[in-house]
């Protein structure tokens, strides 16, 4: 995740208005967002201009994306609405292969002339860069799908819900937190709709309508006397769903260990804000942790980030190959480890799937941004590294014939490249609940929700914090802790994985701001897991006085 984005969200002051925005965004009236700009027929005719121009200029391959990206932010603090922003970005990006080299051009003029010029620019860049080309692009074949479409299976389009209803919901949540004694509360609702049309010289014309929703808040408790303060973030997840995520249905509420309430496929922001204020008070009064080795019981709203950083990133093939060496870093999961077929990434119960189809996830689409039909595939099987995440111009390097379908661009104006799929830890086969798991731990810590995070550029050494920490003594929750962070080596950590709760406890969480590339691009991705136990992990105390 990108640091600046995280800080802005964690602080959620004015910064909340500075979420990643597509280039060339303009603000629009909310009603304008519901009016389609162009029908599929018009898009196909424009796409053909790009494809024909590219062919006539000698391109051996071309694809074109016509994208309309809609975002809506509603930001509040306490009783005040800080900002309501609606943005729209509409344009086209054309990618070509000439002389075995990629070229990319983009334009916000979605006209035959604008698209032709963008295509000519893409061809010129490909020709100029072919001077440096050492490894001509080899594309894996992919079927031609003809004219197809896909839509996120939503029940309620968030953009159709009135601004007033959204403001009322957030202010109601803020009021509940303040009633329960919070010092401050910032809340935010973020909606995304990507309307993407893709066409390639291989004969696919793909129209997609993608929706994502994220309610979030940060409740602050300040003890003026002692000068201590703590922030409790929302137990929501960013989701690939519509506004129905905010229904807060009773069947989606989970009574967790330590008296906490967790959420599955829908979320009750008002109830959670009240809980947050209560818990923030306890966080200040909590006992400072004794550093040492503990068995960790990690809840899914925490696990996702550990999975993202230590499993999602090192299995990205572009990092393995060195394409991200100057920015996001490389990977310890080098090709020889995969070729050996016996590299023990984790213990025998550790199974990871990459998945671009999982319902409700941020990464779910029908087709990726180079026209490949999405699927799921194994990354870690019975603890052993078995595959990477790769796209059409990469799979030949690992001797495979089919792209994994995880190519993505954050906007029409950025070039698409390999991005992380949803990477999830498969639920345990043994029937175990989180309470049963905790009952088997003598000295441990139960951690809820993601907090501080940092990992090295090859993904060996990491450190994670959290939001709520409960001490486990002799199989029982023994009160709240603070100043907790755990440090480990990725391989040692996943080999210490001792128990995974079953499917009943499996939940998704994720992030909108997975950063990679220069200029940097954001990707939205979810990670699923059930509550999981790791034995003998090093815990440090992070309390300091200045």
């Amino acid at each position, binding site marked *: 995740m990108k*640091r*600046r984005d995280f*800080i802005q969200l964690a602080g959620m*002051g004015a910064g909340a208005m500075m979420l990643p925005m597509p*280039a*060339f*965004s*303009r*603000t*629009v*009236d909310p009603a304008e967002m519901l009016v389609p700009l162009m029908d599929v027929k018009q898009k196909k005719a424009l796409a053909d201009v790009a494809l024909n121009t590219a062919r006539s200029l000698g391109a051996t391959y071309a694809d074109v994306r016509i994208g309309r990206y809609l975002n809506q932010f509603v930001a509040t603090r306490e009783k*005040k*609405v*800080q900002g*309501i922003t609606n943005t729209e970005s509409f344009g086209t990006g054309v990618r070509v292969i000439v002389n075995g080299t*990629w070229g*990319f051009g983009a334009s916000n003029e979605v006209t035959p002339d604008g698209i032709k010029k963008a295509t000519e*620019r893409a061809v010129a*860049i490909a020709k*100029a*860069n072919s001077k*440096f*080309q*050492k*490894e001509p692009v080899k594309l894996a074949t992919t079927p031609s799908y003809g004219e197809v479409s896909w839509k996120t299976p939503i029940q309620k389009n968030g953009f159709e819900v009135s*601004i007033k209803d959204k*403001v009322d919901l957030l202010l109601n949540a803020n009021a509940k937190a303040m009633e329960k004694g919070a010092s*401050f509360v910032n809340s935010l609702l973020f909606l995304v709709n990507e309307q993407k049309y893709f066409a390639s010289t291989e004969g696919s014309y793909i129209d997609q309508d993608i929706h994502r929703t994220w309610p979030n808040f940060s409740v602050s408790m*300040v003890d*003026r*006397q002692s*000068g*201590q*303060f703590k922030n409790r973030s929302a137990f929501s997840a960013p989701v690939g769903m519509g506004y129905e995520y905010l229904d807060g249905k009773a069947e989606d509420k989970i009574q967790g260990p330590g008296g906490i309430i967790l959420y599955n496929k829908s979320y009750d922001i008002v109830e959670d804000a009240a809980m947050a204020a209560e818990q923030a008070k306890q966080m200040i009064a909590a006992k400072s942790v004794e550093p040492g080795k503990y068995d960790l019981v990690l809840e899914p709203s925490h696990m996702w980030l550990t999975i993202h950083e230590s499993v999602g990133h090192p299995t990205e093939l572009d990092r393995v190959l*060195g*394409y*991200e*060496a*100057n920015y996001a*870093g*490389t990977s310890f999961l080098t090709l020889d480890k995969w070729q050996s077929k016996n590299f023990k990434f984790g213990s025998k119960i550790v199974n990871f799937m990459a998945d671009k189809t999982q319902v409700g996830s941020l990464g779910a689409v029908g087709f990726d941004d180079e026209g490949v039909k999405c699927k799921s595939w194994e990354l870690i099987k019975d603890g052993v590294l078995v595959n990477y995440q790769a796209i059409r111009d990469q799979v030949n390097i690992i001797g495979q014939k089919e792209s994994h379908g995880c190519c993505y661009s954050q906007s029409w*104006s950025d*070039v698409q490249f390999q991005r992380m799929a949803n990477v999830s830890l498969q639920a345990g086969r043994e029937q175990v609940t989180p309470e049963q798991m905790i009952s088997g731990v003598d000295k441990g810590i139960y951690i809820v929700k993601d907090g*501080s995070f*940092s990992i*090295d*550029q*090859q993904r*060996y*050494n990491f*450190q994670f*914090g959290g939001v709520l920490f409960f001490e486990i003594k002799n199989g029982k929750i023994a009160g709240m802790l603070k*100043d907790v962070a755990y440090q480990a*080596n990725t391989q040692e950590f996943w080999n210490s994985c001792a128990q995974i709760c079953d499917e009943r406890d499996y939940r998704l969480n994720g992030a909108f701001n997975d950063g990679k590339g*220069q*200029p940097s691009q954001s990707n939205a991705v979810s990670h699923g897991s059930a509550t999981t136990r790791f034995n003998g992990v090093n815990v440090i105390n*992070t309390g*300091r*006085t*200045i």
Partner: protein
Amino acid sequence: MAILTKDEAFALLKKVLAYSKADECEVNLSGTDNGNVRYARNSVTTSGRISQSSLVVSSAFGKKLGVATINEFDDASLEKVVRRAEELARLAPENPEFMPFLGPQKYAEPITYVPSTAAITPKQRTDLVEQSLNVAKSSKAVAAGFLEDNAGFSAMMNSKGLFAYNTSTNTNFSVTVRTSDSLGSGYATRGYNDVTKLDTKSATQIATDKALKSATAKAIEPGKYTVILEPAAAAVLMERIFFGLDARQADEGRSFLSKPGGKTRLGEKLVDERVTLYSDPLNPELPTSTWSGDGRPQEKVTWIDKGVVKNFSYSRYWAQKQNARPIPAPDGMIMEGGTKSLEDLIKGTKKGILVTRLWYIRDVDPQSLLLTGLTRDGTFYIEDGKIQYPVKNFRFNESPVIMLNNLEELGKPERTVSVESNQNYLLPPMKIRDFTFTSLSDAV
């Protein structure tokens, strides 16, 4: 849209304001030309040219504000964007923190624009990249890097008579060189307003030397060490102090600058008395805009003077509420230093660790500004004034506030780039005692 002259920007903004029917109207106009080349595995991977321009209209009826943006500049579009801002303002709830727009202000003439950067050609870019690649290739090493340049203008005008205009240029370059066996890695970064100052060859040579010399790293025990932070390593820690100077956060009790009893650390000694931190838009080495986005003048401000917290930054609303001077948040951080070079600092070190770069910096505890992250791309053990051998990378857990209380010595400030925020700063290399490394990393 090309970069508009001051007169052209004035005329366009005047035209936009003429469409306004709101109580107050403010218009911000900007345009940038960006060029970039990215390379990896000794080969160019992507390159791009992006031109963007944007007009932002803020219209207010009482305390109701609407904001609309457009990137088309014909008369019909200009009128449309003003109408849209007004419609949104009428729909908006009242914002009790809304501040009326500022009247005319006086600004110093900015020095942020260098014509040679604005005139960069595609060939110059590829030549700069080729020079970098040649260094790596001749040492049988592998380079990955990114070169980008920007030229742009920004202007604003409002119905109260305020007008501001600025042009600027910038180029940032970074390169990571790895040995072909991936056992060594080195890094260098440069940032300038003037692209003719950019020497990608010498920067890549430094990165290559670090890669070759770091290839046989030894593991030494984590713990407290004297460290010498190169400016690029110091930048990612120091900027966290710089980003945290907001008065409201401190007044509300949720900042490392808050104190027990509801007070703040303003006026108190926070760090070693050799630490002086300021911003100055007219510094010739690190020029920045002479006005902020809401029209307030940017002037030289000392934030920490000889270790004492001298100033906080304020939003206009919070300054009015607290009856304080409304100093805007600054653009470029400058820290005073000494005259010694990095080599001099190494020579004067009995035992210590030289850190080229720090990476993946995250807050661990905002209360103490405790940060974590790792060393990367060249970490070396120093004994008796000499670099003895490369060491394996460490994870650290340290607060820049604690670090600046453990200051041993400062070198000569130089311009550097933060790998975290991409911001440019003027910072000295710094020698710090008792810097806390908490674990080892196998990463190269």
